[in-house]
């Protein structure tokens, strides 16, 4: 049953699976440290934050938008959740508030895009700057430390031997997949990204769906914030700098079209995995960090080329 649901979209992404397979094979042969359960869980844990953000980003890109604010929004949500927890709120409530505010700010950006007609690039660029500023104001530029245990558990704990961040990531992956493939909302997103005017004329509530997309990206930023805050055992005012670009890279490597209308949750997940495996492998192999950046850039372009060639057939 699982295969019936997920198999086809997995198959349609086989170009990516091949790339990931080759990468894993090469790294296993080159480094005796790569192919161990501990290291593979390690990679999944490292990938979790980028994957969560990239899944939210995919939903926005699908409808033909972009969300540059996620890195700053993540920092703000993390700082607020940590701050609330330290000022006496029970940790789950503090976390909920942090995520809730991220969703609210995502919604606000969505409203500006959908109803005020402002370009997404500019609205979320403003968000990137303003949310970072808010974070610095709220934290006074200092990390917030001394967090209660539930935060640590979210970032560093394990459930049945699986790291909690990985659990969060997989849950969010399934949720996003379900949303995109099995709900009217998901089909509307594809429709708007494919041809907004046609979607509007056929009765799709375009504006509301757009607002939803940014709210969902805010949700992703909030969840990623909780994981990162836990992983760092602190809320960092500078956390998440540049994360928006990593998320976009993962989505695009995963076959999401920046023009909108094309992309899947699984593809994005694979994209995040490819980037994560590459980072981990190059670290294990002691590739100079300067060359690591070049390799990362090369792989993004290669993945796009392969994707393009596969599609042309």
């Amino acid at each position: 049953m699982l295969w019936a649901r997920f198999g086809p979209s997995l198959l349609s992404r086989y170009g990516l699976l091949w790339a990931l397979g080759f990468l894993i094979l090469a790294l296993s042969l080159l480094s005796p440290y790569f192919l161990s359960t501990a290291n593979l869980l390690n990679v999944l844990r490292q990938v979790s934050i980028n994957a969560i953000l990239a899944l939210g980003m995919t939903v926005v890109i699908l409808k033909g938008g972009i969300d540059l604010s996620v890195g700053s929004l993540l920092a703000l949500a993390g700082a607020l959740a940590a701050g609330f927890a330290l000022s006496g709120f029970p940790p789950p409530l503090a976390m909920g508030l942090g995520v809730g505010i991220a969703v609210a700010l995502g919604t606000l950006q969505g409203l500006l895009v959908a109803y005020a007609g402002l370009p997404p690039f500019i609205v979320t660029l403003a968000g990137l700057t303003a949310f970072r500023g808010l974070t610095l104001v709220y934290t006074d530029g200092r990390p917030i430390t001394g967090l209660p245990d539930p935060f640590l558990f979210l970032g560093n704990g394990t459930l049945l031997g699986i790291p909690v961040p990985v659990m969060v990531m997989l849950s969010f992956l399934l949720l996003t997949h379900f949303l995109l493939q099995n709900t009217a909302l998901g089909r509307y997103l594809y429709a708007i990204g494919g041809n907004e005017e046609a979607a509007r004329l056929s009765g799709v509530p375009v504006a509301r769906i757009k607002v939803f997309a940014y709210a969902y990206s805010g949700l992703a930023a909030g969840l990623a914030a909780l994981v990162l805050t836990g992983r760092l055992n602190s809320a960092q005012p500078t956390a998440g700098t540049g994360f928006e670009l990593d998320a976009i890279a993962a989505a695009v490597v995963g076959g999401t079209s920046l023009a909108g209308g094309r992309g899947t949750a699984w593809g994005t997940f694979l994209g995040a995995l490819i980037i994560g495996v590459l980072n981990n492998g190059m670290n294990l192999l002691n590739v100079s960090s300067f060359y690591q950046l070049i390799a990362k850039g090369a792989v993004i372009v290669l993945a796009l080329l392969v994707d393009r060639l596969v599609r042309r057939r």
Partner: protein
Amino acid sequence: MTRRIGFLGLAVWILASIGALAQGAVVGLSLSTLNNPFFVALRDGALQAAQKAGIRLIVLDAQDRVDKQVADIEDLIQRRVRVLLVNPTDSAAVVPAIQRANRAGIPVITVDRAAAGGQIAFHIASDNVAGGRMAAEYICQQLLKGRGKVVELEGIPGTSAARDRGQGFNAYLKEKCPGITVVARQTANFDRAQGLSVMENILQAQREIDAVFAHNDEMALGALQAIKASGRKIPVVGFDATPDAVKAVQACEMAATVAQQPQEMGRIAVEKAVELIRGTKPPAKTQFIPVPLKLVTNSACKW
């Protein structure tokens, strides 16, 4: 299509093979950034010491990203390094990763910035608070004779280096030098380009500036550009004594820079790691190994 995918595999293979040449390392060094001559010097000192001792050193660059550093350290643990040298991007954020190394039985040495927790065998650093005081004392006693208006360019907010240098600097002024006021205090994130633009703005706002203290040389050199362009002559005191800054001091363009000795830090860190590998027991409590600071000035210059 298969052939094209084969190409991708081949490309990845070649990239990975470049790294494979360097296999067999036993000590890991996780640096906050290599986009700064200070840490490049630290790395060079460490590499030289490693070569001399006949051990291999894996150097990873976190690019100033706290999350990347955690991942880097996790990878070094998977790579089973014998000793872990860490130059934290942030004192608090690095703690879970250090605890993970502790659990794996890998001794940890922190370099330059301290960690807020975990078991650390040695901490190797210069005393940044003392350095900040040193800069304040020089500005107060030598440059301004106890009276004047000073600009402070701060480092990345939240980093311990920025906190400590600022703290030492301001504490000295408050305690020993009441005649000096800080008329502008702005962050330029340890970055030369930002040092330039922030200083340009301050120059617009402040007609009277008698001296500038920057938390690092990159910002100091940026500020220097702004001051030169404005046609004013204001002594700038930096921190770190990077080659560029030392050159500027020699040319009487900068007044002084507080010299940390990053190369020494790297060397001492690796030597301590070698001791641990050769069987010395790590101390029960973190042992602080201070690396001396010195003020680099040029007595031939007139300020």
